[in-house]
């Protein structure tokens, strides 16, 4: 990928289109975080492509002054795969939501993760359908009252990270929709990662599901309720930085530093690069604290690399360089 260091500012990535999300929506935060991240990745903007599906999140490409396509519901990962395979030099971003990715587009979502093309998926999870005005989504909670579940939702939710890792995701990060600094950092890391990266943003829908993540993301509780993990660092959280995680048998446990002789060195060190995703899955499932940051970042061969290798081998062994070679090969005969 051709790169260009420090040439752009966020303004270069802002299109001239008026942004039309509801006032107060976390989508604005995500948009700005992306516009801040891309100049730091150092990619030429003509090499950046945003592909989206349908939903509030999917208006995103219109607001980025890059190449972009607002596709059809659920199919962005498939469209993006075609873009990337056609031109592997491009930095390809999929913008999707919980309904787009895990309901109508569930099939594409799991298969794109499995294949591991070098691209990035930003999943705006607000646990509700916004654009169609308030129906439950595949991440809505059981009992949640929505337009289509007035007496409470009866369908148990997906945990996106769990689903993604089940589908062999090599890179999975989760960030709060109101933490732009962390988000920007995660976007940059995702862009640098070779393979499909999935970033789940806990995005608050102010209209239909306001406060869905408040117990983790509200400024007042954030430090105590969220553990932002970093590769190679101990798993510490809390306003006082005195809480941490240890592994007790097959379970993760919250401990307090200084209690029962627990020292920082007793805490788990985050290893995002583990091939075995068991621990990553456990981190994803924790409710207290809610684990954010790059939970999994396992380097693996990408789909393009496999395809390239194979193409090189086939080319080296092939007797064909032009299609005519093929047409006239094998059994042909002459008619006088």
């Amino acid at each position, binding site marked *: 990928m051709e790169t260009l260091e420090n040439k752009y500012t966020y303004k270069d990535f802002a299109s001239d289109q008026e942004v039309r999300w509801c006032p107060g929506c976390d989508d604005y935060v995500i948009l700005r975080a992306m516009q801040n991240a891309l100049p730091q990745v150092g990619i030429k903007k003509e090499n950046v492509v945003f592909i989206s599906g349908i939903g509030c999140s999917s208006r995103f490409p219109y607001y980025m002054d890059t190449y*972009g*396509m607002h596709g059809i519901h659920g199919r962005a990962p498939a469209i993006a*795969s075609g*873009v990337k395979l056609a031109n592997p030099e491009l930095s390809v971003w999929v913008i999707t939501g919980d309904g787009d990715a895990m309901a109508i587009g569930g099939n594409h979502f799991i298969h794109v993760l499995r294949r591991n093309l070098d691209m990035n998926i930003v999943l705006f999870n607000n646990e509700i359908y916004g654009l169609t005005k308030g129906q439950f989504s595949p991440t809505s909670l059981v009992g949640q009252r929505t337009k289509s579940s007035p007496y409470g939702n009866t369908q148990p939710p997906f945990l996106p990270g769990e689903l993604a890792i089940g589908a062999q995701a090599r890179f999975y990060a989760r960030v709060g929709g109101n933490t732009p600094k962390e988000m920007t950092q995660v976007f940059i890391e995702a862009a640098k990662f070779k393979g499909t990266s999935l970033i789940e943003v806990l995005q608050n829908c102010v209209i239909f599901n306001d406060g869905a993540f408040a117990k983790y993301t509200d400024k007042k509780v954030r430090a105590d309720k969220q553990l932002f993990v970093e590769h190679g660092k101990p798993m510490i959280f809390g306003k006082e930085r005195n809480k941490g995680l240890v592994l007790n048998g097959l379970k993760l446990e919250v401990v307090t530093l200084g209690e029962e002789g627990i020292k920082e060195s007793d805490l788990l060190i985050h290893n995002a690069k583990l091939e075995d995703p068991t621990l990553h899955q456990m981190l994803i499932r924790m409710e207290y604290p809610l684990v954010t940051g790059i939970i999994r970042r396992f380097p693996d061969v990408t789909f393009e690399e496999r395809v390239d290798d194979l193409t090189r081998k*086939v080319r080296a062994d092939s007797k064909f360089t032009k*299609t005519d070679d093929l047409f*006239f090969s094998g059994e042909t*005969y002459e*008619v006088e």
Partner: protein
Amino acid sequence: MSYFIRYSKDIFNKLKKGIEKGILYYQNYNQNVMSIAKIKKSEKALEAVVVRFAGDSGDGMQLTGSQFSDTSAMFGNDVATFPNYPSEIRAPQGSLYGVSGFQVHIGSVEISTPGDNVDLLVAMNPAGLKTNLHAVKPGYGIIVDTDSFTKKNLEKAHYESNPLEDGSLDEYQVIEVSMTSLTKEALKDVAGLDNKSITRTKNMFALGMVYWMYHRSREHTIDFFRTKFKSRPELIEANTKVLNAGYYYSETLELIPNAYTVAPAKMPSGTYRIIMGNTATAWGFLAAAEKSGLELFLGSYPITPASEILHELVKHKHFGVKALQAEDEIAGISSAIGASFAGDLAITTTSGPGLALKGEALGLAVMLELPLVVVDVQRGGPSTGLPTKTEQSDLLQAMFGRNGESPVIVIAASTPANCYDYAYAASKLALEHMTPVILLTDGYIANGSAPWKIQPVAEMPDITPRIIYGADSQWRSYDRDKDTLARDWAIPGTKGLEHRVGGLEKDQTTGEVSYDPENHQYMTDIRAEKIKRVQNEIPELQPRFAQKGDLLVVGWGGTFGTLYAAVKEMKQQGFEGIGLAHFNYINPLPKNTAEVLRNFKKIVVCELNSGQFASLLRMNFENIPFFQFNKVQGLPFGNVELTEKFKELLA
């Protein structure tokens, strides 16, 4: 050798002695006493012969048939083939629905169909006989493997008595051969073969017999064994031995009723090969990619009868072909749309049910105005329908099967070989007009094969994709060519042309999202007009046999061969004033369509559906009356049913 017993040694010796180059024997079985006539090749050369091989789906009938057709083509015959196989991969042995057939029509004259009536049926078991007997002309030949006519197999084929014994085959010339035993006998000295491998070669015994009857060389097939079984020399030996055994069996024994030759056909000079429709389709795309200077991207999901296009294209990584077997039909077309956005010649291949799934994405491609080719190899429908049988019932789906007003170019190939031309034409139209194109073929031509006069890429028309590499600051993504109305193709990676496209309606000037009512009307009209103007690029309709007259036979797509043969026969029978107008361009229709239609008193639209093209024609030409001839049986038209209908209309 028990099979000698039935005829005198004298006749046998006469036969043997007379086998010389250029001299053929015609043995007449119609009398009980066999007479042998010595005839010259030119006198007894047949114009055309139809041979059908029928057996269990595991009997290797497809292979046997294709070997016979390939060999005949190399001999210089024109050929047409038609495989007919069950959708079960290995249906229960001996069952009626497990019968697999392969028909070959070879001729010294132009062959346009795999043939109606069978001159020689090779039936490997009772079920193969039962399901195919109706096609054999009375008085003509049937070869049966008597070893397979066991009580069990007769029951499975629902025979109450053995047709070889009950006289029900009296009007045919039945050649009874203990094929399984003879095969075993031939292989008794070959080491390293299990029983299964031995019985699996008996199809080659049948092929050997047919080769001798039609004076075909075994060389091509023996070469084929050498390549196919490269790592298993015992199989090369076994297959060759059995092929030879069948050949000599025919040659030395007096069991053969009709030994004919079919002389080479008169075809335009050049280098030929036998090609299957689906392969020709794949190759058309390869040629278009090379000619346009683009890389070829295929996004596809396996589906009968289109999968061979995927199978063919995945082989050609050396040409830079990118083929993605996607997770479903929708991902197949969606990935192709992505690849098209990024500058590849992008295609997706499917059959009817898959086209239904692709409908929404195809609408996106219409809105984005990006080049895309969708191949629909039609099969029997609705729903899963008849996956391995042919039909033309996706026409209206191709025309209208999308939400909103979403016109696309629709074209149809009409022979196995011209699948190449129309795949190429589809690519050219898509790239030059910035629009999706649906290419319709069908199971009949996709699986059928015919000689193809190889068309080198250099001889194909130029393709000029509308890629732009830069523009001034005034450039907008929906700027259009004033003649074709096609927009520019600005691909990601091009500096200064960053823009957004999407499924929402676009403003006619800025290309940004627009909800303006007038703008939507304008864009709807211009998308339609863009397709209509393709009329300026496509060839005019050329009626065959007559330019005006009493009856115009109208067809489209894969029925060309059958319609052509039927109209030709009518002409030969002295019916003047009958013409054939066959359509390859469906949307838009050729410019001169009305003119051609108006030159005939009656028009009959013949289709393998309930009248879809007829409906389209009525929509376009309100004042012209159309008769219809329709068939929805999963089978191609038969010659007789067509000529009867034409005669009725001419009466």
